[in-house]
């Protein structure tokens, strides 16, 4: 028993020895992932923007300091490289962030790679996106349906897009009016349009109710006194990498690091978007039946020939293929 009494001092000695053990804790993992990138390269823009967020060790970003990085984009098909510039943007909520930008016109079907090379590290953060290609199909306008030669009781027109390899992210339908005699346009968008969805492999059909549109436009624009210069439809197509889990852009899911991310050695997502449009102009008789003033009416009234040219059934101006 007397030997056992020495257990207490022995315990004390062990305890004092352990007291010197490491008691620090590092809440952060060592990682080569230094940056988060978010941005959508947009075919409809001349200048592209990507937000660059350095991964930090504090909750708040604090004071923004210049980033010692090189940001380069490369068109992998054309082999063209371009250096981007940094800017510090102050957002509406008062926070600031780095947004890199460069003048860049995207080419449909081309793959772009963006990369950030820190000045003090060899680890390059990259992301790659392929701009949706121009549909190789066509746009077909179905004929108008009249029930009566002089009074329109129904006027529907189906727009069928062929060569579509993915669901459009958005379909915009608009009416173009000549807003002033000098030839400037104003596009008025129809808020909701029926979408019949894919009607055949690689085809997309949208049916337009011209009479319904007219009643909507009457409330939005009073178009009876300005000539109709065209009817248009625009498809917004996303990079295939825009593929959220379960097909839903649920922030609770997408916020999780690594979910729907195409950034290597970092986090975030850089995608691309292409926009394709078609415009057409109904014939004078139809336009009048629908209640629109036509360009010819304007010409007759003013004696001035409009300085516009409508290109019906044609893809809108795209960057050079």
């Amino acid at each position, binding site marked *: 028993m007397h030997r056992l009494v020495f*257990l207490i001092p022995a315990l004390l000695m062990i305890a004092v020895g352990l007291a010197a*053990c490491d008691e620090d804790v590092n809440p952060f993992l060592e990682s080569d992932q230094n940056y988060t990138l978010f941005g959508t390269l947009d075919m409809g823009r001349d200048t592209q923007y990507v937000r660059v967020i350095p991964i930090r060790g504090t909750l708040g970003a604090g004071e923004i300091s210049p980033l010692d990085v090189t940001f380069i984009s490369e068109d992998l098909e054309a082999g063209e490289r371009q250096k981007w510039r940094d800017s510090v943007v102050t957002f509406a909520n008062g926070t600031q962030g780095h947004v890199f930008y460069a003048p860049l016109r995207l080419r449909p079907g081309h793959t772009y790679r963006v990369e950030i090379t820190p000045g003090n590290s060899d680890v390059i953060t990259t992301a790659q996106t392929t701009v949706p290609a121009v549909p190789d199909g066509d746009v077909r306008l179905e004929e108008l349906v009249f029930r009566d030669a002089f009074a329109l009781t129904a006027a529907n027109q189906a727009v069928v897009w062929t060569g579509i390899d993915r669901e459009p992210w958005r379909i915009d339908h608009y009416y173009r009016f000549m807003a002033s005699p000098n030839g400037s346009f104003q596009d008025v968008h129809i808020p909701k349009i029926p979408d019949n969805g894919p009607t055949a492999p690689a085809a997309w059909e949208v049916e337009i109710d011209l009479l319904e549109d007219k009643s909507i436009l009457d409330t939005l624009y009073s178009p009876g006194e300005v000539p109709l210069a065209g009817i248009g439809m625009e498809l917004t197509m996303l990079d295939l990498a825009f593929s959220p889990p379960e097909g839903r852009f649920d922030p609770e899911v997408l916020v999780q690091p690594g979910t729907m991310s195409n950034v290597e050695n970092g986090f975030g997502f850089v995608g691309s978007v292409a926009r394709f449009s078609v415009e057409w102009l109904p014939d004078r008789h139809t336009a009048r039946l629908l209640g629109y003033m036509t360009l010819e009416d304007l010409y007759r009234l003013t004696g001035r020939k409009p300085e516009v040219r409508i290109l019906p059934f044609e893809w809108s101006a795209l960057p050079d293929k």
Partner: protein
Amino acid sequence: MRSFWISLAFLVRGPAILVLFAALATAAYGQTASLRGFVTDASDGQPLQGVNVVLTNDAGAFLGAAADVDGIYSISRIPPGTYALRATSIGYAAYADTLTLATGELRSLNIALRPADVEVGEVVVEAEKETAGAAAISAGLQTIRPSDIEMIPAPDVSGDLVNYLGVLPGVVTAGDRGGQLFIRGGEPTQNLVLLDNMLIYQPFHIVGFYSAFPSDVISSVDLYAGGFGGKYGGRISSVMDITSRHGNKRRFAGAVSAAPYVSTIKLEGPLWKNRVSFLVSGRKSVIEQGAARLVDQPLPFDFDDEFAKIHANISRNSQLSFSAIRTFDRGTIGEPELFEGRLTTDQVSWKNEAFALNYLLLPANFPARAEITIAKSSIENAFGPAVKPLKSSTTSQYAVGANVTHYAGFVDLNWGVFLRASSLDSKLGGQFQNITTELEFNTDVGFYIEPEIQLGEKLRVQPGIRIHSFPSKSRSFVEPRFRAVWNLGVHRVSAAWGIYHQEIVGLNDQRDVGNVFTAWTSSPLGTVPEAMHFIGGYRIAPTPWLSFSLEGYYKTLSDLMIAEWTAFPRFTTSLQPADGRIRGADVRLELVFKSFYSFIGYGLADVQYDARQRSIRHWYGEQARTFHPSHDRRHQVNALGVLDLFGFDLSVRWQFGSGLPYTQALGFDEFILLAGPTDVLKDPGRTRVLYGQPYKGRLPAYHRLDVSLEREASIGSNVGLTLQAGLINAYDRANLFYLDLFTLRRMNQLPLIPSFGLKLEFN
């Protein structure tokens, strides 16, 4: 629904079966005699547990029983004749008598033992419940006595149950701040805590050294770390069944104590000498005025508890007691923040209130004991700015039940019925976004049958079944249970198995260890947590001064509810279902000498959950994510040494726990939802935590040494003074309590604290 009708059929037929069984048992033993009664301490009338009552005769007959927690002993199937009766217990003079029992006689004999400094040569009747000993564990069951608790160094003269629990392997505490107990991998809300048969929802005080159970009001504690029998249900981890002391029936006694943490007062005495006693106890924390100054740092914690009990010996065969308890806790969390134009700090508070009326009866006509209980328990929880809590939960339960044991020789037939009505009302302030809580009322009803069968001299088995039904939920549970103890001289082998369900769950956010706010509600995700326990143990006591035990356990868990992980740095989230399994082993070594006591315990545990959050398959490509939750303490060592030296009691306790899991992060960034073309010039994004794999990191190990020195002195014929001095965290280990990732603020457990206290007692 089918299971409901099956259960209903059981509920209707069950009591009929029991009555039939009891009648048959009574008839079968009509040719023999029975002896039963209460064993008490002659000095104060307290029931004495574990007293061996033995009958012998010249023909070599040997019959015996050990007194239970209420001091009840019962010996059945006694052949008629004359016997020598002997009742013995350590610390008491033996009681001897000669009895002549006639055929069919049911004799009641109450025994009062006088305290004496004598040792008992041998233990002759082995019960599953031991009267003392940290290594005396049988299939998860350990009985704790106040004297065990008093040995643990604490910042107070009086002991507290929670300090003893912290010594046991397999029990993981949340730390010095915010008392939470994880028992063998189970979570705090999965523990059933009963005091005199009343449910205590949140029994541990906000400071880890204290619970609602000071040692000087405790008579005994049965701690089932798992594998509990059919008497208990509604929780899936463990049971702590606490029996309080009766007040002194002979004379008045009392005590007051003062220490930097709490001040206490206790008073007891006879209301009707030898028949009716009272006991009242109260404690009030003085931490902010005392300990905070000692450590020179704010300790914004406040708690108190009050307990009262009246106990009456109504007749030779029946007792009635009324117990009531109230506890209150309040603690401040975090830094002051501006709320509704005022600088305020978040605080968490809770209040337990409970009372119980217990009627204990030894029926005159057949050998049985019956206990009927009427109880009410409630808890109020609140969390949020002190001026206006954002979250609150109010829960109350009314319970009526009966527990009956028929003594039928080699079979003790235990059975019981219960009926409970609960009211649950929580306002969670959107903390868990995928559930709604509203005021609801639940009724549950059920019964259990659990015969305790002695097979031969050495093997005792306890198969049982518990039927538990929630008619308003159309849910019923059939829960088989099994316990067995095999005594082989100095060896003991034990095993337990059981299935458990928990319909009413406590919701808290395990991601935030600093916040103990818990809301009680019916299982909100439509599934009910279930557990299955397996326990196997071995114990050897080769000498009176040495005992060693080894116990392994395995638990499966299903349909748990845990907080979802989100990368948004916020306190609201959703609940996700999870399954899990727990495995581990406890090793205990106990040395008991006259002036030296030592206990060393080692616990090995491995807790694993499989989370089934919807997003997991997107992150990891798996349907479920396996991780070790934040209470998975893999290794745990506790060493306790108590030395009686020149009239001083020196107590040294060292504890070690390997690091707990936590989730490391890569850092922070902003998240911008790119659901299509997005203008990054306008969208600032939302701050995000880039966390790594959940709970993959391990915090530094926890270890601490506590020392106390105590001296008792008599300062009058009936007045005693106890002085105590000690050191908590003697080598000032900076043990981590939590690290706030958002602010990188580190909160440690308590630093080195010198403690001192004095206690004045009279009797």
